[in-house]
């Protein structure tokens, strides 16, 4: 029983890798081979699908658009969440608990509910079809999440640190930026990771708030799938490329993931 224990995670990981393998295998096949019948691996290995994505602006600009709103959203969410999380972790103030739960309740709002009003709101203020609109809209669920995670990390820092700095005559912002922020660097990394993740994977709002100029890669994919019929190889190549930023980010935070989940109470 104990000897065979490694089998459980091993089998699970095999199960996880199968669809990813299949996506990769498809992306290296020619359209003829895909439609010709079942083949376990590419018989005629081709990079044509990837070449098309990297040379066609409608494709590669999709990645640029997606990454730009994800980065704006991550920076914005963490920047506004930092002082708020500090307030929640260090002070009591009128309505603090209500405010905290109201913030969290926004995490429970289905994006489908907000799709139409967001479309109208961002059209009205002239931000429709810009990365900023999507970045702001994603703040709806990422800011509460960032506050929640950072508050957890900040509460683990002893309050004596603050008190000593004030005794030494540090003004608040100087203390906050020079001493406190470096002390919770790991927490900021974890919060940024989750903001990046949820903004990168969300599609419904991103698609609703953009049409041409700021179209995210995910929307390019769904529109291609419906208009040009059966270009599975191209679709698979585009899909495979969307895994890259995530894998890259995971690699950097690999040692913090488990800690972030528990401490950050995501």
């Amino acid at each position, binding site marked *: 029983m104990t000897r065979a224990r490694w089998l459980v995670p091993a089998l699970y990981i095999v199960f996880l890798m199968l669809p990813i393998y299949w996506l990769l295998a498809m992306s290296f096949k020619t359209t003829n081979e895909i439609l010709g019948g079942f083949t376990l691996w590419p018989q005629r290995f081709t990079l044509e699908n990837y070449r098309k994505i990297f040379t066609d602006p409608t494709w590669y600009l999709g990645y640029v658009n997606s990454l730009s709103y994800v980065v704006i959203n991550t920076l914005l969410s963490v920047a506004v969440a930092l002082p*708020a999380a500090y307030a929640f972790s260090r002070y009591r103030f009128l309505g603090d608990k209500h405010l905290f739960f109201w913030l969290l309740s926004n995490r429970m709002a289905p994006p489908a509910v907000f799709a139409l009003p967001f479309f109208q709101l961002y059209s009205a203020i002239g931000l429709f079809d810009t990365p900023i609109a999507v970045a702001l809209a994603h703040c709806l669920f990422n800011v509460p999440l960032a506050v929640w995670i950072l508050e957890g990390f900040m509460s683990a820092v002893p309050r004596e640190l603050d008190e000593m700095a004030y005794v030494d005559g540090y003004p608040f912002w100087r203390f906050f930026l020079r001493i406190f922020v470096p002390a919770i660097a790991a927490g900021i990394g974890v919060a940024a990771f989750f903001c990046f*993740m949820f903004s990168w994977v969300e599609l419904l709002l991103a698609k609703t708030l953009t049409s041409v100029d700021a179209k995210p890669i995910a929307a390019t994919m769904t529109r291609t799938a419906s208009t040009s019929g059966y270009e*599975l190889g191209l679709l698979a190549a585009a*899909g495979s490329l969307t895994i890259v930023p995530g894998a890259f980010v995971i690699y950097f935070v690999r040692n913090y993931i488990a800690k972030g989940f528990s401490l950050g109470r995501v």
Partner: protein
Amino acid sequence: MSAKPVNQRAWWLVLPVLLLVAFNAVIPLMTVVNYSVQETFGDNQFFFEGVKWYDEVVNSGRFRDALKRQLLFTGIILAIEVPLGVAIALAMPRRGAWASVCLVLMSMPLLIPWNVVGAMWNILALPDIGLLGWTLNKVGFDYNYTRQPLAAWLTLIAMDVWHWTSLVALLAYAGLSAIPDAYYQAAKIDGASPWAVLRHVQLPKMKHVLTIAVLLRFMDSFMIYTEPVVLTGGGPGNATTLLSIDLVKIALGQFDLGPAAAMSLIYFLIILLLSWVFYQVMTRGEEQT
């Protein structure tokens, strides 16, 4: 631990978050409330209708069917993913290089855009040229998820298990890592069986993270939209039309603002209510133990 000092100036620190979230949450929510009590015939003319749309939504067979499908889906998801996630976390290596490898590989599905997850499973399950669909048909099952409601459901559930079990496993793993070795040594001296260790040491210590896992999986599976839309498009027929899919069809497809808005609010309230119930049930034991 001393109590936190009262400081009303802390509001200034919260202000940016408050403004940003209020802008994103309050204005759209008020828009929805506004539409939900009015009727329009175009030309931006609106007439007050009271609770007419709520009445219509609550009594419509379409909404009830979508809600039933949604509850069934979420129930199945929780029943599979939570025990499976815990089992995987228990069997994972605690430290060393293999632990890191497991963590990184298991996080992969969480970082793939949701429509790509749908597309990936779509390609995997194609009956004639997909790895899964082809294999199932080769070994004798008649499998075609675009035509059989049962096959569509099974594919959808397999996809969600693939996508989200890692989240439960990572949370449970984080909870397990926080248990000091001394607990295990004490259990060993007492001659406790692995089952007793699980029942009396590991599960109670994981309670906090498991509450979060159940709540997150509940909320997110209740709001699921992109993956089933890409995989099945809500079909065959309406077999996999869950609440969000139905809502988007009404709101953005048909532009029936009133019913869509009323449905939105009912939908949101159901999630809030059920989340609260889950939270109460799962944390009630804490004062007793």
